[in-house]
């Protein structure tokens, strides 16, 4: 099959939509989706790192010796994570505080290293960029989906605004750790109802 930019970009939205199709990068999905705002922040940060690390790795893939491949990828990814961390702190302080540790942990999000190893190290720059962007945005969408459900049910709000009726008793389970697992599991089941293609 011929690889096209459109295909590489779009596959991240359904075919291998993380974290549902690719069961990777679960930690941030579970941890930060208590509010939509955090979900968007996390998703876009990950997209940023994924995009740039894919581009850089794809462009220098030829000069990296095989043995220090993973170490090099990690340094490159970590660099972009630190940049995100600094920029978040400077311009989106409250979100950065909410996400806390999980900004640092983008560096060990298996999706990013996985794409670097599985895709960027083998494909030309333009495809890697499309792949990174597609998967990153797919990830962001998933995060928004989960966080919307969790925020509305768990807090009765959406992006901080009250959306449920006033007497709605927030279903606090949804914003707790067990709720995160159950919610993700049920959404996954829902997505499984529809075949991949």
């Amino acid at each position, binding site marked *: 099959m011929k690889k096209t930019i459109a295909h590489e970009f779009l596959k991240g939205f359904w075919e291998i939509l993380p974290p549902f199709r690719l069961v990777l990068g679960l930690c941030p999905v579970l941890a930060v989706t208590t509010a939509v705002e955090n979900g968007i922040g996390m998703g876009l940060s990950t997209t940023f790192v994924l995009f740039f690390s894919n581009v850089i790795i794809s462009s220098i893939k030829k000069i990296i010796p095989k*043995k*220090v491949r993973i*170490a090099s990828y990690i*340094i490159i990814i970590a660099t972009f994570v630190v940049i995100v961390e600094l920029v978040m702190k400077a311009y989106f302080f409250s979100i950065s505080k909410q996400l806390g540790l999980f900004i640092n942990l983008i560096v060990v999000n298996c999706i990013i290293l996985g794409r670097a190893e599985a895709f960027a190290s083998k494909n030309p720059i333009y495809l890697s960029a499309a792949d990174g962007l597609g998967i990153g945005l797919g990830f962001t969408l998933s995060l928004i989906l989960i966080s919307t459900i969790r925020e509305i049910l768990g807090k009765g709000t959406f992006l901080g605004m009250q959306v449920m009726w006033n007497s709605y008793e927030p279903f606090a389970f949804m914003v707790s750790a067990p709720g995160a697992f159950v919610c993700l599991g049920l959404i996954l089941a829902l997505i499984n109802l529809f075949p991949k293609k």
Partner: protein
Amino acid sequence: MIILNSFLMLLGLGLLASVMLAIASKVFYVWEDPRIEQVEEALLGANCGGCGYAGCAAAAEAVVMSKAEVDVCSAGGFEIALQVAEVMGQKVEAKEPDISKPGCYYGFQDADLKYTYDGVYDCRAAMLLYGGSKECNIGCLGLATCVQACPFNALSMGENNLPVVNIDRCTGCGICAEICPKGIITISSATRRVLSDNKVTECTAPCQRNCPAEIDIPEYIRQISEGNYLESVRVIKEKNPFPLICGWICPAPCEFECRRNLIDEPVGINALKKFVTEYEMKTNQRALPTYLPPATGKKIAIVGGGVEGLTAAYYLRRLGHIPTVFEATDKLGGILRYVITEDRLPRKVLDWEIQGILETGIEAETGKVMGIDFSLGVLFSEEFDMALMTTGGWDSRQILRGGSKVEETIPGTYLLIDFLIAASKKLKVSINKKIVILGGGNTSSKAANICLQKGAENITIVFPFSKTEAELKNIKLFDTDQVRYIFSAIPMELEGEDGHLKTLSLIHSDGKSEKLNLDNLIVGSGRYPEMLFEKGEKGKWKTVEIIKVLPVESEIGIFTIGEAGRPTDLTGVVVAVRIGRKMARAIHQHISGEEISPESGVLMDEKEVQNVFEILNVDQLKTPRGIINNQVTLSEDQAKYQARRCLNCGLICYKKTISENEKSEIPA
């Protein structure tokens, strides 16, 4: 400042990490055989674990390390083995295919149930509830766990709620056998069946349980009813190479236990065997095994050309070894030839059967008496790897060729009875200095006396019982320095060199062992048990202990008669067949470097027939059995009628409905 620090920090760290890794990859370098990766690529990659290794990578490593054969991947079969062999630069020969064989014949619609199961649809779950819904504790639960587990889609559920194997797809990987909570799926091939005994997890019919040779009786009857006569003979020959002879003279203990006894009269099981093997003889087409394994190149001498020796030779050949039979008389056949009369067993039947056995590739040397014409030392110098003695004893020798000579079948060893008779007849018996007498009660004292007179200096008498027991038995004990007694000890091993006996190892009841040097051994029994010798270095040889199926105290040691809890007495040819096959297995195990041991879960007591005391829903036939005796051969119609009468029993289940056309009258 901060720029410099950051720069230096990461520079330093990058440098440190890479230098460290570079050094470490040098220091901790482990050479890996590149073939491991290649072999792994050749393997299926299903990581099924059917080979017994933890996944394909481990199996590949084992192959490269020469710990496993190139055909390690049972699931991949011959083609994968070829690819692996190519990587390893080895040749591979075709292997007999293993096929999964579910061991239950009655689905739950036909079986007696304890309760109706309506839980989780998985055998393993059903198993948790009182071992499943069937009365029969080894019945298939029919919930298709094996079907789901099969990685090759070779299993499906049949109409009668039993798994059905697609033979073309089955690779014999053994996953179904492992996952079945009842453990009733076996991996089966003709060779495996030759080597196996009836097991507690097998659905065995009462007749099969009572057959000393453990023939799969329901299967051969089924083949007859379908008209596959040669296939039927093949089934029988997996356990008995003398089916026609048995058809003539077997006492047929199977028929005593036939469940038809509870309705009318037993099925003519033996008559059917006679019919089908006579068909083989009349049409002169041998039912040869469908597969012969590659030759192992191991030569085995079998001393004694009777039923037992010939049976052992047949199965050794069947397992790929090279047996040679030595017979003292001019013709093979032993008791069958010299004791049983022509009208009970026509000689042409005997010759036909023996001929068939020899045709599989067995050499026979007749007219050679062990201990006179040749000895163990000679055999082992002629590059035999092992020797099996199936000579019987004094009685058979008396019958076959008179007792005018004293034979040292084993160098320096006499049977007590031979020794005493020889002494009374003043025949020549040579005795050296150091003598050991095994058992024999008061007659051993007699023998010791004779030895002393003949100039023996040092006599040891070994009894398996204690001194108090000896006193209770009124055994008169010597009181001289020349005679020493050892009580409560059992002989475990004989060693010799060339034509001489050297040592006898004993085991005491407290578990300690002792080695006696000796020149002569006098055995206090009338017959030799089956004994197995193997070649050592520089002309040395020793016995190999045969592990008994029932290891009770009195049945360990080398001089214990009977391999499997039944002595090789003269009760029936079928018993000798049984022992012969088991001896072949013991030799095969020993040659393959395995421990000689029975399989686990072997059915111990054949008589313990299932508690089925009445047969329901089966009508009596008007003339059930007809006239059956050893002289009569059934016609084809009569045979099919008899075969139809078989209830196809399992452990508990049996055919409960007989269709109308099966209720026919006995054909003329």
